[in-house]
Each structure stands twice: as C-alpha cells, then as structure tokens.
C-alpha cells in the first residue's frame, strides 16, 4: 500500500521534477554563450518641469499597445500633485478621457502643484522578475523588462511586487501587462508612442550607452533623480526637476 502511494506521489511530481532539472540545462547552455555585441541600453528621461498634463501620452499608449480603455489599466499615466500650505500632498490621476474637468479644488490653499508622468521604470534589478514563479517576465539584453504572455499564468505576484504600480492584469488575456518602451517600435528605430506625441519634450528617449543620445545630454545638463532610490531597483527612467515630495 505504502509503496503504491509513494509511486503515485512520485509520478505526480514528474512535471515539477522536470522543472528542477532546469539549472543543469542552463549549465550546459552556458558554453554556447555568444560574445555579446554592443547592444543598446534603453532608457527614458522625464523632465517634470515641462509636463503640461495634456494626457496625449496616455492616449497614444493605449492606441499603440491595445490597452483597454478603463483608467485602471495603464501602461503610462500622469499624476497631478498638489501640495497645500499644511504641506499635505494630494495626488490624483489625470483622467485621459475627461481631461478638461480635472480642476483642483479651489478651496485648498495651494503651495505648489505640478504633473508627474509615470511608467514602468525598466529596473536593472527588477523585483517583478525575481518573484515570477514561471519566469514569464524577464529582462532583455537591451534592458527592457518584458512579459511572455503565453507563459504568464496571471498569478499577480509581479503586480504586487512592483513598487511603482506599473503593472496591471490585462482583462482579455488574463496575463500581466506593462510598458515595454514600445519594444516593437524602438527596435525599428522609432520612438515610443508616448515620446512621439509629447508636445513639450517632457519625455526623452534614447540609448544610455551612446554618447550622442539625447539622454546622455540630459544627464550631463540636469540633476537626475529616480523614484524610490532606496529600494535599489536601479530604474532606467530618469527624472529631472523632481520635487522631493514625489513618491
């Protein structure tokens, strides 16, 4: 009896065991490692003091990437920060469909107010990649974090793990979805859709490794900040003129 139970258990565990062999497979593969040629390392700069909160980036992203229309599903979004005279910080989401009515509360005594565009930070140390149980999300060699939506099983760990709230569960595919820097565009030399339509060059896109990219110039000219630097995620979305209150 006991033997049969054990046997059953072992056969049941077959698929699991198959995965366990992965490290061996990877060891074998390492010999064939090709000499990496000079690949780009993509990054984006956000010049906060230029954003006028027009919301064109949000709409262009949805059109380009087939993102569902609900405001809860965003690959990129714009936050309105209002800091009142009690130094309280109020953050609200710019609604892409009803942009003109999102006026701030007149009663509030406003100290300062501005817009902050946000998107996936394409971290060098991405927490989402670490927690994915099936390795469906991974970092490409040119530094972009992608989701394999055929492998993803929609468990949502990565959505929880992302400190920037950059991921959502796509209602149709039931898999995790997020900004890819418009990977299909940038690999053809086009700019990401949001950068393409930004009217004030608040968004700057380029190759972090190239001395001639607009990002390199931005880094030389301005003081750069990243969001939540203490988490050591090493974001590749770089902010200039970032207010200290922005989280």
């Amino acid at each position, binding site marked *: 009896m006991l033997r049969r139970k054990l046997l059953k258990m*072992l056969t049941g565990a077959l698929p699991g*065991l*198959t995965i366990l062999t992965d490290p061996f497979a990877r060891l074998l593969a390492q010999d064939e490692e090709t000499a990496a040629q000079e690949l780009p390392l993509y990054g984006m700069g956000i010049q906060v*003091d230029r954003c*006028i*909160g027009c919301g064109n980036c949000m709409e262009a992203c949805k059109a380009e990437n087939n993102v569902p229309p609900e405001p809860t599903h965003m690959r990129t979004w714009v936050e309105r920060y209002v800091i009142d005279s009690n130094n309280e910080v109020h953050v609200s989401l710019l609604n892409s469909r009803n942009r003109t009515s999102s006026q701030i509360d007149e009663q509030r005594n406003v100290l300062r107010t501005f817009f902050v565009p946000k998107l996936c930070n394409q971290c060098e140390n991405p927490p989402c990649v670490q927690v994915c149980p099936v390795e469906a999300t991974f970092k490409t060699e040119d530094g972009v974090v992608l989701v394999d939506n055929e492998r993803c099983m929609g468990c949502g760990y990565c959505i929880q793990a992302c400190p920037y709230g950059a991921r959502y569960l796509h209602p149709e595919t039931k898999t995790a979805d997020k900004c890819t820097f418009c990977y299909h565009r940038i690999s053809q030399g086009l700019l990401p859709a949001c950068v393409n339509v930004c009217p004030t060059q608040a968004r700057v896109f380029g190759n972090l490794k190239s001395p001639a990219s607009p990002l390199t110039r931005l880094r030389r000219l301005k003081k750069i900040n990243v969001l939540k630097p203490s988490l050591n995620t090493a974001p590749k979305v770089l902010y200039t003129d970032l207010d200290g209150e922005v989280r």
Partner: protein
Amino acid sequence: MRKLPDSLVRLLIVIAGLASVVLCIRFLVLPRSLTDMELHKQSAVERELEKPIQFAGSGICQECHEDEPATLAAGYHSTLSCETCHGPAQAHIDDFEYKPKAPRQRDFCPVCHMYDPSRPTGFPQINPIAHNPLLPCIECHDPHDPVPPETPRSCEACHAEIARMKAVSHHVQLECKVCHEATNEHMLHPRAEKPTKPANREFCGSCHAEDSDTVATPHIDLKTHGGRYLCWQCHYPHFPEAS
C-alpha cells in the same frame, strides 16, 4: 558491511527509473522553447516585435507633405509631432484613402492651452471661455504656425504676471495700449519714462457706459454705478470681475 534491506533497494531502482524518465522527458520530449530559457525569451521577444505599429513617427510625413512640416518646424509648435494632433497615421501611409483626423473644432486646442494651475508657469495658457469665444481657434491661429495675429510680447517680457492674468480675464482682448500709452523709452529705461494710466471714470465708460455703442460689453450707468469712486478702486482692471 550490512546489506541494504530489499525494499530499499527496490525503491532505489524505482526512483532511478523515474529519474531517467524525467530526464528523457526533459531533454527528448519537451519542445526546446518550453524548457530553454533563452529560446523562450527569444520567442517572446519575437512576438513582441511583430506587434503592429499605429504611430508612424514624426520623420516620415515630410516625404509626401512639404509645406506643413516646414511651417511647423519654424514656429511655436515645432516641438509637436504631426500625430499629436492628427492621431495615429500609419494606416494613412499604408493607404491614402484613410484620412487622419484634422481637429478643427474649438475644444481641441484647450487640451493643451486651457489655464490649469498645475501647468508650468510660462506655458502659454488661455481661458477658453473668455478668449475670443465662439470662433474656432484656427480662424485666427494657423495650427501649424500658431503665432497670435498680433503678439504684444514686449510688455509681457517685464509685466508677465499682469499679462498672464489679463490673458485669462474678461479683458483678454484688450491690448495694453488700449489703456496705456507706452513709449519705446519705457522699454529701454522703464523707470525714467512711465506709460500713462487711465485717469478717470469716463475712460472705462467709453466702452461700458450705457450710451457707448460697444457690443458684447456689459453696460453700466456711469452716473450712479460705484458712486464717485474710480472704477479700479473696486475692479482690478487687468482681471475685472463683476462681484
């Protein structure tokens, strides 16, 4: 050496058998793309690359359109991409029969230009209710080169706050020179020669008195309204409000 119990030996054989089955499945049966991380990533990347493009990008329009890109590049809207206003246009390039939208209606421009306190100071903003109402914006501003018909930028250079305030007020259409006579000398040595300022109630009355023939201007009774006080003791002239 003690001999292993029979049952244990058999169990070990079973485990060895299972292990070889597992290895067989792993290396011979399962497709490479499922087990090989590199291959699986590669196929995900390839699927990503095949996604269709909606926005053609800013460089390509000038291959067929000559005037608009040249005008755009020389004007205030030089940082705008064609598709920021005309919408995704890859379909138009694949087939001219598909016309990109041309946003002619008045509510389009305020998406960027309506006054909003969170916008950076210095960005040109207007109050869409007060700024030349009822006419489409493109009646006066060429969307590809939106210089205002007359740009009184010179006063604005130093009196930016007044100019900004006026730009969102009921007096938006009144140029500074309607109420102030400023010489060139004032621009060069502002304190040496000061512009004129309205001196009396009759000045405002020229537009607001009941017997003046201005249209679309609220009229008051010049004799009684506000008593004997000067109009600007109650109304700020650059941002007049009726309350």
